[in-house]
């Protein structure tokens, strides 16, 4: 019983981390109809940057994160403005291929600079427990992941729903020509969307780097997790992504508590397959299958 309860608690918290990994991917898909294959690598790039800044520039993790976000904003602007915006109107495949190429370049670039060794963003949180009672323990790091994920998703929802910027991005996404006729430069809106995305990826990168070890090639692994959240929750739905993350995290850990941790990944993706079969548009998506 205690093991099950523990799995549920940890699974939900892990789901928060998964959600913040997936939320950027969900945004890009919802707004540009683009599957960003490089999403995982962009996040791991942020993990490396945060680690680098903490070791060589400034010890404070929040300051290092802010530096990382600053660098990633420049990076995000460049890939959107110079690469994706130039191919986005030429159909789905060219932009997809650009992000595929970007994924290879980023992971190999990281390999070249940092080498193949396992890395981590140093933190004490992973060794401390926030709650430790009645046989249930909650890691401080996992609790932080969840709180930050929920905060980021709420902030993003508010930006998209209530601000002029969010309205512009939504308009550009739902009717590009009409938005242009109203004077909205839709390509600039895509750049803003990418900037929001790399900001969430930077935060996710730091949290992942603190929670787990990472390698230059770990990006792909998190890309699949991001995919999972987005597909379960519904493409383009931010709250859905949080739900998707929690379901994926729960499935993995609760499944592992019954069948052993060797089956953790398998069970997570089995749940993904079942949801895909039953509700292919995702749980909270308003989209209808064509």
């Amino acid at each position, binding site marked *: 019983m205690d093991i099950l309860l523990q799995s549920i608690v940890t699974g939900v918290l892990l789901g928060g981390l998964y959600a913040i990994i997936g939320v950027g991917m969900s945004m890009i898909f919802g707004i540009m109809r683009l599957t960003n294959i490089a999403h995982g690598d962009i996040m791991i790039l942020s993990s490396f940057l945060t680690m680098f800044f903490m070791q060589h520039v400034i010890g404070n993790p929040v300051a290092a994160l802010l530096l990382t976000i600053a660098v990633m904003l420049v990076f995000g602007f460049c890939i959107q403005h110079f690469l994706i915006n130039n191919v986005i109107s030429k159909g789905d495949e060219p932009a997809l291929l650009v992000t595929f190429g970007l994924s290879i370049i980023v992971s190999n670039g990281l390999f070249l600079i940092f080498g193949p060794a396992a890395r981590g963003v140093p933190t004490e949180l992973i060794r401390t427990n926030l709650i430790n009672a009645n046989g249930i323990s909650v890691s401080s790091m996992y609790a932080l992941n969840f709180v930050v994920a929920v905060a980021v998703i709420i902030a993003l929802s508010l930006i998209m729903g209530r601000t*002029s910027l969010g*309205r*512009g991005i*939504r*308009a550009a996404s*739902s*009717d590009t*020509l*009409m*938005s*242009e*006729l*109203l*004077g*909205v*430069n*839709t390509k600039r809106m895509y750049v803003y969307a990418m900037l929001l995305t790399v900001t969430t990826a930077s935060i996710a990168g730091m949290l992942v780097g603190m929670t787990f070890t990472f390698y230059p090639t770990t990006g792909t692994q998190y890309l699949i997790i991001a995919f999972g959240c987005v597909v379960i929750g519904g493409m383009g739905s931010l709250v859905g992504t949080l739900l998707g993350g929690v379901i994926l995290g729960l499935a993995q850990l609760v499944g592992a508590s019954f069948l052993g941790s060797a089956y953790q990944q398998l069970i997570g993706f089995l749940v993904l397959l079942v949801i895909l079969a039953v509700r292919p548009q995702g749980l909270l998506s*308003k989209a209808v299958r064509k």
Partner: protein
Amino acid sequence: MISEKEAILTLDGLNVSHGDLQAIFDVSMRFPRGKIVSIIGANGAGKSTLLNTIMGVHRPTSGTIAFEGRDITGARTSGIASLGIAMTPEGSRVFEDMTVTENLLMGAYLPAAKRKRGEQFEKVFSMFPMLKEKSSQLATFLSGGQRQMLAIARAIMMDPKLLICDEVSLGLAPVIIKDIYRKIGEINETGVSIILVEQEVRRSLQHSAYSYVMAKGRIVMEGASDALPIDEVNDAYFGINRFA
């Protein structure tokens, strides 16, 4: 013929092609400031291509477009809109998943319009009281006529100098069409130049000061609307050159 000086928008020798297929042939037009001008033509006459070319969606193979004396040929659509040209495209194209208010706010997206959006809101709500009642409703729940009103109101939020209305009456009941045309007249009275694009000959002539008739990508007839004989326009409309 309209003189260069009275014109707010001037098209000169426009040729437009979709790939190998030419859609617009050597079209020159002048649209007088402060007036309602109609472009009449059947389906496939090239009206929509012409409007899309004015708005920078298509690039002409040759010819120029000037707005208030400024060359806008080949400019980005959002840039052209920001100069003060608003267009309500065919089928209204309201943002379905936004509320009426949010749709109107999208009309006031440009900085200049954003600054005066308070008074613009008052203006469109007094012109279309229905929109005020439905302001927090999603646009997807509006009727066809209400959507068309919202599309026009959204364009007015831009505080444009020139308003282009593409087939505003398409698929609407006659009583609603009448209402919409009355609103367009009111908008014109506030000093906005208007281009009406229509398939309906009689209505176009009735509501405009000057008319161009298009067939097969060419201007086949033009003149002051009250001086154009309706049967000749009808013939020209169908591409019959009996009077040309």
